[in-house]
């Protein structure tokens, strides 16, 4: 048997045999696919709280102690000599009794090099700009995310193009890993609305230690997530959110996949 005859014989032998997979087996595969999440490059963080480090916890504790002290000093009745019980607090004393503890003053501006937005930030916070996946200094899975570290909070931001075939709500649900019955978050289309840069956005505050807003401009989807265990986390988030300027045309535009 020469080479050609052997190849022909082998081909005929291989062609012989069952050619159809059973419908039951195909159905079973589809059922398993239905309950299987696609593995996505975590171009932004999953819905889980980032633990606040020990220094941040200490800072929160210190702020609480100082706040309580200030309230005690200014609100408790004083004596007529001004040193103790009795008397009423002055207007200035009342003002200083409720300081905007933890609400940052956002005097700096950060312009994302990849994600197509700018945002204000506080003097005592630092931004680590998003880097492409090709950058060797990027930790695996964290390419394309802008990181901000503040004293009692951190913020991550990223954006991506939503494919034409997918609805914005469905895309956000998939990217945030939402599944019906998930106690953390909700279907994107049913989350409470807020406004970011004049556009309708959605906000999720159900996940412990985390506040997240999502907004789309055309097909570009943005996600801003604040991690904080501070009692005024929502106020911090709102302060940041009010400074966001969405500039999709400036995005470096690498889709997440």
């Amino acid at each position, binding site marked *: *048997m020469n080479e050609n005859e*052997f*190849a022909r*014989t*082998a*081909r005929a*032998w*291989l*062609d*012989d*045999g*069952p*050619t*159809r*997979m*059973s419908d039951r*087996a*195909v159905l*079973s*595969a*589809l059922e*398993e*696919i*239905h309950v*299987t*999440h*696609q*593995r*996505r*490059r975590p171009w932004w963080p999953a819905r889980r709280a980032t633990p606040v480090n020990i220094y941040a916890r200490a800072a929160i504790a210190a702020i609480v102690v100082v706040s309580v002290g200030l309230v005690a000093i200014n609100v408790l009745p004083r004596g007529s000599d001004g040193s103790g019980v009795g008397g009423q607090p002055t207007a200035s004393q009342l003002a200083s009794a409720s300081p905007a503890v933890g609400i940052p003053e956002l005097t700096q501006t950060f312009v994302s090099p990849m994600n197509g937005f700018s945002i204000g930030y506080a003097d005592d916070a630092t931004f680590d700009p998003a880097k492409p996946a090709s950058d060797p200094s990027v930790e695996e899975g964290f390419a394309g995310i802008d990181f901000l570290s503040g004293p009692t909070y951190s913020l991550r931001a990223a954006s991506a193009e939503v*494919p034409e*075939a*997918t609805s914005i709500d*469905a*895309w956000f649900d*998939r990217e945030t890993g939402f599944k019906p019955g998930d106690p953390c978050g909700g279907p994107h289309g049913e989350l409470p609305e807020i406004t970011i840069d004049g556009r309708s956005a959605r906000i999720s505050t159900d996940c412990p230690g985390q506040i997240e807003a999502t907004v789309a401009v055309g097909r570009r989807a943005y996600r801003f997530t604040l991690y904080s265990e501070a009692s005024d986390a929502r106020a911090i988030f709102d302060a940041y959110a009010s400074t966001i300027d969405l500039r999709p045309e400036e995005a470096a535009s690498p889709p*997440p*996949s």
Partner: protein
Amino acid sequence: MDLALVEAARSGDEEAFASIARGSADRLFVVAHRILRDVARAEDAVQQTLVTAWRELPALRDIERFEAWIHRILVNVCYTEAKRASTWSANVVALPVDGPATPDSTTTIVIRDALDRGFGRLPTEQRAAFVLHHHLGWSVREISENLGVPTETIRSRLRYATSTLRAALEADARTTGTTSRERMA
């Protein structure tokens, strides 16, 4: 392959992937069956391949390579399946009762049996290379690129597979010849 479907599936469209799965299942099954020579294990392999493909699809950068990519997954799953069952059991392929009569069906059965036995002795890697080459018609280079294995390794696997199967055929031919001569005597 409809690239629009692949693109949609890569973006998370489960329906699009279901269409791909339905359209690919039989083709993948044939390859898996020829490698594993077992219907149930071939079906398991295809199921596992489809689930893995769905899960990992967002990582596929070039959707035009989908076919090669999913076959690579399939072959890897077949390796695992083959390892799971340490012994290989050949399926008995029933001849079609009403099928066309071949001029020399005895020879066909003999050759088939010889190939079945020879194939059963091959390691899965050699079987896969042989199936991809002779059944899908992939060149050595295509197999090498699609499986991510050096060309020389694929060439070597094909060489070993071919010589094992040829040896099985020749051994059978000798036996058959002897039997025929014995009968003639």
